[in-house]
């Protein structure tokens, strides 16, 4: 079912932002691709496909979105969830409820488009259930403008059922971050897997606070938190990652790299908690300037110092090569 846009100009503005992240008009016109396009608290366009049901409700202050994927459904095309603000000022509050039925498999592409935003806030409260043996892959990409006057506060409570798998990749690489405070908590049941990747580039006066918390509660549960942050100018970031190994054979790892330039400041606070002698959680963190040998290698191959730094940083911020199998 498709509802046509009530306001063509808002749609057009969001569409141009979508173009920039590679979502062509065709993807939103495609009958076999589910999507949701939200401007502030208005749904401009909603489309379901068999197996995926997207529902939107206006709330007193905000918008509530329900996405339900039927048990066993194998959804071929990614589900596009686009949240944006076509006005330069405003606030967006989103409640997102996601239920991935048993054995289902789906990929979400979430686009948060604030390219024109000058002064605004985007608050997301998500509750996500990935039921037994299901798989959910979420790629959430933010496109911000140059103004930096935006406050982004995503919070997610995620439950990964027995044998289920969650892959989450959050990126904020285009434009100024402004203020970002993320808060993800994931509970993983037996033989479940949760991988959280965060890739952020901070500039100017950006303030970044990343909180990721994985609780490996079931036997053989696995978790990975991978954080990549590049900071320039006077940007600051605090990365707080916690993994709890609460059951036998639970395996967790946290891996944080922050490249810091100019007067920027980076901080990493890993917390490892193990409540079962047969669980194991490890962490590694590296914060500092760009590695000298890397730079010298690239310069010896013809790059200028600036090009070399840019390649090391952009390489670090690229999504992981490994596709979820």
């Amino acid at each position, binding site marked *: 079912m498709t509802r046509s846009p009530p306001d063509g100009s808002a749609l057009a503005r969001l569409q141009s932002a979508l173009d920039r992240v590679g979502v062509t008009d065709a993807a939103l016109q495609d009958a076999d691709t589910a999507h949701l396009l939200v401007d502030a608290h208005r749904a401009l366009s909603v489309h379901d496909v068999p197996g995926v049901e997207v529902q939107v409700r206006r709330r007193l202050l905000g918008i509530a979105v329900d996405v339900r994927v039927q048990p066993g459904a194998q959804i071929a095309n990614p589900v596009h969830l686009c949240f944006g603000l076509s006005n330069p000022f405003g606030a967006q509050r989103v409640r997102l409820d996601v239920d991935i039925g048993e054995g289902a498999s789906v990929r979400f592409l979430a686009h948060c488009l604030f390219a024109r935003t000058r002064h605004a806030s985007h608050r997301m409260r998500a509750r996500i259930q990935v039921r037994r043996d299901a798989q959910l892959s979420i790629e959430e990409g933010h496109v911000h403008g140059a103004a930096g006057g935006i406050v982004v506060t995503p919070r997610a409570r995620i439950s990964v059922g027995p044998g289920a798998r969650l892959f989450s990749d959050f990126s904020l690489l285009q434009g100024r971050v402004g203020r970002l405070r993320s808060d993800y908590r994931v509970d993983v049941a037996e033989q479940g897997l949760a991988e959280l990747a965060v890739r952020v580039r901070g500039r100017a006066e950006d303030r970044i606070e990343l909180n990721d918390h994985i609780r490996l509660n079931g036997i053989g549960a696995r978790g990975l938190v991978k954080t990549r942050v590049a900071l320039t100018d006077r940007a600051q970031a605090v990365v707080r990652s916690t993994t709890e190994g609460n059951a036998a054979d639970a395996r967790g790892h946290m891996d944080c790299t922050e490249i810091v330039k100019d007067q920027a400041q980076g901080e990493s606070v890993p917390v490892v908690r193990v409540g079962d002698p047969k669980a194991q959680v490890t962490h590694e963190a590296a914060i500092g300037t760009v590695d000298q*040998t890397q730079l*010298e290698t690239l310069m010896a*191959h013809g*790059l200028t110092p600036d090009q070399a730094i840019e390649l090391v940083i952009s390489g670090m911020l690229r999504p992981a090569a490994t596709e979820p199998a």
Partner: protein
Amino acid sequence: MTDPLLQIRGLRLERAGRRLLDDISLAVGAGEIHALLGGNGCGKTSLAKSVMGCDGYAPDRGEIRFVGQRIDTLPLHERARLGITMAWQEPARFEGVPVREFLTLGHPEADPAERLRRVGLAPWRYLGRMLDKTLSGGERKRVELAAVIALAPRLALLDEPAAGIDLRSLDEIVRVVRELRDAGTAVLLISHREEMGRIADRASQMCGGRIIVSGSPQHVAAQYREHHCVYCDGELTHDTQPA
């Protein structure tokens, strides 16, 4: 001998109160392979880094000329622009940089597949691989060598190109270094291995931060085998002397 492309005179390098290089004089002619031999810790890598212009390896004394021009005060990337490049003994790893991109840095028209084949790596298997810790040491060395070929530099400083390369493939590396030279690149070839020394046009032997003998590869190799240092009049020593 052809005109020296690289001319080092009286080079001295001190670090942390130790003299790592002392009174080094060395010439490498255009299009020739000059083998630099010597035991662990005698200063081979330090010399290569000093020529390349790596951070912390600026000489305290002496001069380095490239085609007659003083380069010892130039930053590394400007030396690279003159046509000098280096393959590190332990190549750096890069997260998120695929082999394909690394092999076309600064010259997107190059055919990376062809370069990989020349160093014995199947392109279909490696072009999309990341240059990170998932590549083995030997694979990483080969990619580095492929990148040097792609650059077609005037001078390549190859620091132990055969280190970590399995024995069966050693001939391949030898062939690549020969082909580099035949294509007009001069090579300063740092190696422990005599097989590598044999393809050189000239050779020098280092001991304790000094060059103790230069000459034909046969002459220097014989000296190396005898493990006799004419400078310290004894066993080849790994120690560098205090400054």
